[in-house]
């Protein structure tokens, strides 16, 4: 429904910070937290109450671990401590963390601008397809020269 959301403003800020460590900014490539991946994850959470719970519990665990590890909110920690925090959560909650990584990668790499920046084909596979050179049958000359390698049987 329009206007529905899963994350409070502070949860969204936390999530964006987490996403920026899962796929950090580098050169021309933006971090995953700055290109709307939080919104695609929220869309998935709106469609699944189970996922919603998993993500909210996971975010709470990240914040708790941040305080235990670095003595501060996750968003206030240096990048290295943030990464250490996430590694700890990855160990402690592998199912949550792997789901978060999968959702992050999907949300990031479905964006045409990102696909262009990583040098991959931005258009869908069809209708244009691609062209490959015709198969050169002479590539098989060495194989043919061996002769039959199948195991003989008696026949019918």
């Amino acid at each position, binding site marked *: 429904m329009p206007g529905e959301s899963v994350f409070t403003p502070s949860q969204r800020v936390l999530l964006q910070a987490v996403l920026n*460590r*899962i*796929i*950090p900014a*580098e*050169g021309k*490539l933006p971090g995953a937290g700055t290109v709307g991946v939080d919104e695609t994850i929220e869309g998935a959470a709106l469609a699944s109450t189970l996922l919603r719970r998993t993500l909210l519990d996971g975010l709470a665990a990240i914040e708790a671990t941040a305080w235990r590890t670095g003595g501060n909110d996750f968003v206030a920690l240096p990048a290295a401590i943030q*990464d250490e925090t*996430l590694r700890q959560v990855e160990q402690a909650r592998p199912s949550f963390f792997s789901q978060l*990584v*999968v959702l*992050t*990668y*999907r949300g*990031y*790499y*479905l964006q*045409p601008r*990102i*696909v262009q920046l*990583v*040098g*991959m*084909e931005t258009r*869908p*596979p*069809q*209708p*244009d*397809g*691609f*062209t*490959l*050179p*015709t*198969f050169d*049958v002479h*590539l*098989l000359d*060495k*194989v*043919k020269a*061996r*002769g*039959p*390698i*199948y*195991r*003989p*049987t*008696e*026949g*019918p």
Partner: protein
Amino acid sequence: MDASRDAATDVADVLIIGAGASGAAVAWRLGSKGFRVVCLEQGGWIPPQSYPISQPDWELHRYTDFHPDPNLRGLPEDYPVENSESCFAPLMFNAVGGSTIHWSAHFPRFHPSDFRVRSLDGVADDWPLTYEELEPFYDLNDRQIGVAGLVGDPAYPPKAARQTPPLAIGSFGATLARGFDRLGWHWWVSDSAVISAPYGENRQPCNYCGPCDIGCTRAARSSADVTYWPRAIKDGVTLVTRARVREISVDNEGLATGAIYYDAAGRLHQQRARVVVVAANGIGTPRLLLNSRSRHFPDGLANRGGLVGKNLMYHPFAGVGGVFPEQLDSTRGPIGSSLFSHEFYETDESRGYVRGFMLQAVRQSGPVHTALGGLVGQAVPWGPDHHRVFAERSSHMAYFGVMCEDLPDERNEVVLDPNLVDGDGIPAPRVRYRLDANSERMLDAGIARAREALDAAGATEVLVNRIVRPAGWHLLGTARMGDDPNRSVVDRWGCAHDVRNLFIVDGSVFVTSAAVNPTTTIQALALRTADYIDANRRNIV
């Protein structure tokens, strides 16, 4: 029940349950011979133009409505499969065309030795037929659907010419081929159920777009919906979609009389027939038989021997990926059908296991697939190394699928789950499967050889997924074929030992699995069974 559809005169000669690879082949063959054929399919049509590969978000569909695992796809026509006791997740697609809808179309035949496993290697059983007996049906099927490939492969006896030239393999394939040549190993360009040149009606040749597993808008891939079904329907076969069969009905003598099914609105119908052909795949078929209980068959239809659902075989499958320093065209061309090696296919007991494996080259796909790890499932690491590793792998990888022969084991089975049901309340299947010691040793050997092949091809890093869980594409053995009713469910023609007008034509009937993708053999067997029904129509129909 809907009386308007169940008139006493509405009795088909042949009822086929399932419109996939085998059901379609039987429908075409019997329709062309003048039989009145009705086919019930729980899914619907997927028009080729509607596949998502021409949409901007095409990659997302691999993980949603075109996910190969019905448990994760969860469309209304899917039924759940309880698979927590199986190291491989069974994969299937429920639609007209069946699992050929998400098919990568790699189309190798059995070897002659695959029909003689007991005689040659002292394990499993022999098939009640030979390669030579099946060969005319392999050829017939190839002509009907169109295959790209090249004759002369020394791993096989001589074959009839392929219908279209071999598919291009690009720098991806040439790189792998060089590795095989350096090692002196066999390789060959794949037989692909894809047309590389004009063939058939309303089809365009492959244009190497890549993700065959998410469909083919050109109908270049020879899926059953664009090959057999148009001709079968033209010949008068009636195909009823959104028809989910609950059970096969029997009469007082224990003969099959047809099927009871739900339509999309949940209304119950009956389709009567003189002969019933089951083509519901190696999980759907035993499920249906086990759900078809009567006083004649209290343990399930055709199950007096207790073997329905037993001997489930997949192909134990590992993924091995090589990262190459040079860029490859590895996202261009059919993802799963390019080249393969049968160097280690035939038994050599000095290797420490019996039977063998195939190395099947597998391509990369789009950026999401790359990030999530492709065939080896090792996602690009998150964090500071992410972009570097993504760039190293993107269009720089080639995979081998290590496809091992699976030996039959009655402990590997399909049963009815005690609690799970589908959307119509029909008991759902549960699969139990574990690898045996031979498979474990073979997987390890296959991984080692794949690694060797990738190193020889120039890979600088090799990634391994020892057991690819989402690799249960091939569902085999659960209504096995044989001459002995005490050791098989159907006879050498696919006729149930217990029910003389009931036939099974899908992968359930496999005696052994071989180490190749099964669809060409499934379809050849189906055509052979259809011809048997035709030749014996006076006694059967």
